[in-house]
């Protein structure tokens, strides 16, 4: 019993890694950029991998009329995400502590996991929307305007997950340390629920 509660607390605590480590990373390589430019996406903002990467990505993107990479103040997500993550971590710990003293039913563990999963999926959906907007809402005076064979403007949206070629660039979009810690944390909470549920069954 105590073991599962500790797992629940530990799992929620791992969410806090998102305050120190990037959630996601997008790298842009090209023939002219053998050393790819990259941006690390944190829950509170976007930073270049190297000092001038954001400036240089913006510089390259202006040819196709892309907006500049947003500053934290320009996106509500960067204010809300830290609160959500902080809140979920705190909630998970409270549930874990109550579980430790056997004050609540194991379903609370599962409940927390499902809520986190839904919030995570909403976050991904929102992130994908931003990428879509970034890759398609282009300056009508863009220097380079390319169309697909059907005559529609090319979609420059970087992939949400994976590697994709966009003109001369190859974009790599993958989770980073913060996300991995979150995945591990969530798995731990699910495990906590499973162990506790099984334990209850044997007692009965």
């Amino acid at each position, binding site marked *: 019993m105590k073991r599962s509660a500790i797992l629940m607390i530990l799992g929620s605590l791992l969410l806090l890694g998102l305050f120190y480590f990037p959630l996601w990373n997008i790298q842009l390589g090209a023939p002219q950029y053998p*050393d790819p430019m990259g941006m690390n996406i944190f829950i509170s903002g976007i930073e270049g991998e190297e*000092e*001038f990467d954001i*400036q*240089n990505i913006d*510089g390259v993107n202006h*040819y196709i009329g892309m907006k500049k990479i947003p500053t934290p103040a320009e996106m509500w997500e960067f204010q809300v995400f830290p609160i959500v993550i902080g809140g979920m971590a705190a909630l998970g710990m409270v549930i874990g502590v109550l579980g430790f003293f056997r004050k609540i039913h194991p379903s609370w563990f599962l409940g927390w996991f499902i809520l986190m999963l839904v919030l995570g999926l909403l976050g991904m959906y929102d992130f994908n929307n931003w990428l879509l907007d970034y890759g398609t809402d282009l300056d009508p005076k863009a220097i*380079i305007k390319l169309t697909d064979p059907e005559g529609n403007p090319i979609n420059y949206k970087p992939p949400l997950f994976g590697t994709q070629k966009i003109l001369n660039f190859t974009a790599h979009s993958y989770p980073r340390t913060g996300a991995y810690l979150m995945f591990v944390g969530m798995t731990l909470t699910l495990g906590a629920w499973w162990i506790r549920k099984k334990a209850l069954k044997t007692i009965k």
Partner: protein
Amino acid sequence: MKKITNFIAVFALAAIFTSCNQNDEGEKSGAMASSAAEKVYVSPGEHDEYYAFLSGGYSGNLTVYGLPSGRMLKEIPVFSQFPTNGYGYSEETKDMLKTSFGMVPWGDSHHPDISQTNGEIDGRWIFINENNTPRIARISLETFETEEIIEIPHSAGNHSSSYVTENTEYVVAGTRFSVPYPQRDMPIDEMKGNFKGPLTFIAVDDDGHMEIDFQVDMPGFNYDLSHPGRGESHGWFFFTTYNTEESHTMQEVNASQNDKDFIAAVNWKKISEYVENGGGEIMDAEYVHNVFDHDTQTTISTTKNEVLKVDPRDIPGAVFFMPTPKSPHGCDVDPSGEYIIGNGKLSSDLTVHSFSKMLDAIDNEEFDGDAYGIPVLKFESTLAGTVKDAGLGPLHTEFDDKGNAYTTFFISSEVVKWKVGSWEVLDRQPSYYSVGHLMISGGNSRKPDGKYMISLNKITKDRYLPTGPELEHSAQLFDISGDKMELLLDFPTHGEPHYAAAIKADKIKENSKKIYRLDENNHKYAALNEGETKMVREGNEVHVYMTTVRSHFAPDNLEGIHVGDKVYFHVTNLEQDFDVPHGFAVIGANTSELLIMPGQTKTITWEPKKPGVWPFYCTDFCSALHQEMQGYIRVSAEGANTPMKWGLDDEYTSN
């Protein structure tokens, strides 16, 4: 039957010979050739193992090559104007070429030498001397740009230079053409006894900055080449001399009469202490010292008016002469510091002096008279050995890490390998043709790297496709890791490389700068963003604060400039991305273009001659829209009242 047997025998013999020949040829053109090719082949995208810095000779510059590929990586402008990037033309760099003779747009660069720590090359800076208008330059190995040039007063033919001591305490500058000291109007044929050959010791501080510490007032011989002592002989410097005859005319004959000239052994540590204790005498001088200030990206040029002169006869034990046969040229010190090699260029022998024997001879006062009051040591007292009949016309010697020495022979056109200590000749390889200097990475330090040697040849003739009467010089790369030297590669070089220096690439490549930081740009006329761009009129001078970013200038339309104005284009490259320079050129400019690296500001002047609308453009293919990176300047007639107005994308500012 007998006939048939004979016929068969002959046939069989012929077959054997034929097959033998085939085998021989097959091995030579196959295995041998491919092994040399493999040794110099650096795959596309891969880096060379060494940086080699070759003096540009009469180009005035320093060229950077990769070894073993022999690929030229860069030409660094040092003593000559370089319209390719605006060095020596731009307002920021033109004072780098300022001297007490005014602006000297050309130089003759000779002997690059990399800074040392504990007798090992350390890759902080590389120094190089200018022979014609005596100067020493220091080049940064982070930016690969010339950072400092100091003129050497009272010197003429700054040839026995710019060698550094084993902790870069000093870089030295000797005088090849003895001259009146100080200069004065006098009959040339009264040279003997009246001319001098001052040796200048320039102190180098921890940031690389150079200051002349003292000049040693030496007899009027020709101080040809020099090298520092190392290890036990650290604290001494050795200079070869010729024309100890002090002849002033037809020197090819008259300066070749003495059987022996001298190697001057200078105890600089002793002189340095003497000077520190207040010794020496201030004398008038006029020389210019130019420092490129990275903060303001501008040259700070100062004229100095005095120098400290030291008479070596006032300091017991400071200077001795070692007689050395046949007008010695190169003066080379082995890695241990024990042996000093005099390359007697009119002889077939090499004379090797022993440092420890020299000290004993000094202690025992084994003198053979004096020259102008400087003791001459007995030839036999310092002699360690002679490399006999090694070749004709020895010039320079370098060393490997296995106790071998390599000497170039100009007349017999070859490089000869010999054993230090036993003085026996081990190998010889022809050079194509008439080799001058040779170079082994660290070959004049305590720790040579005996993998490659390059010979720097003075005559090219038929080595490459003919290109008319004027040819580039040629270098040859040898593998010296085995018992025999193996010629691997010929490669053409730029100007006339005299000496060279090389260093393992990994010692410096990580320090090589990618950009200049815009937030460290304190240039007086920098525009750090497009909002700061403007035009400012001061009388007939117009200062344009301009920026570049892929792919436009700001401003790109300028009006209100008149014939008779002098326009200063201060162009700041706003990029902070590796290898995104922008260029600037304007029609009819009587200067050069500018090539501006990310974060830099450079200035060029333009004096429009005719009214009209004149274009300017980016000269470096910076981006896909490079062709569009252009602009217009409206020039009105003198006295017209066109107002000043500038802008970008039809948004104008005026005043």
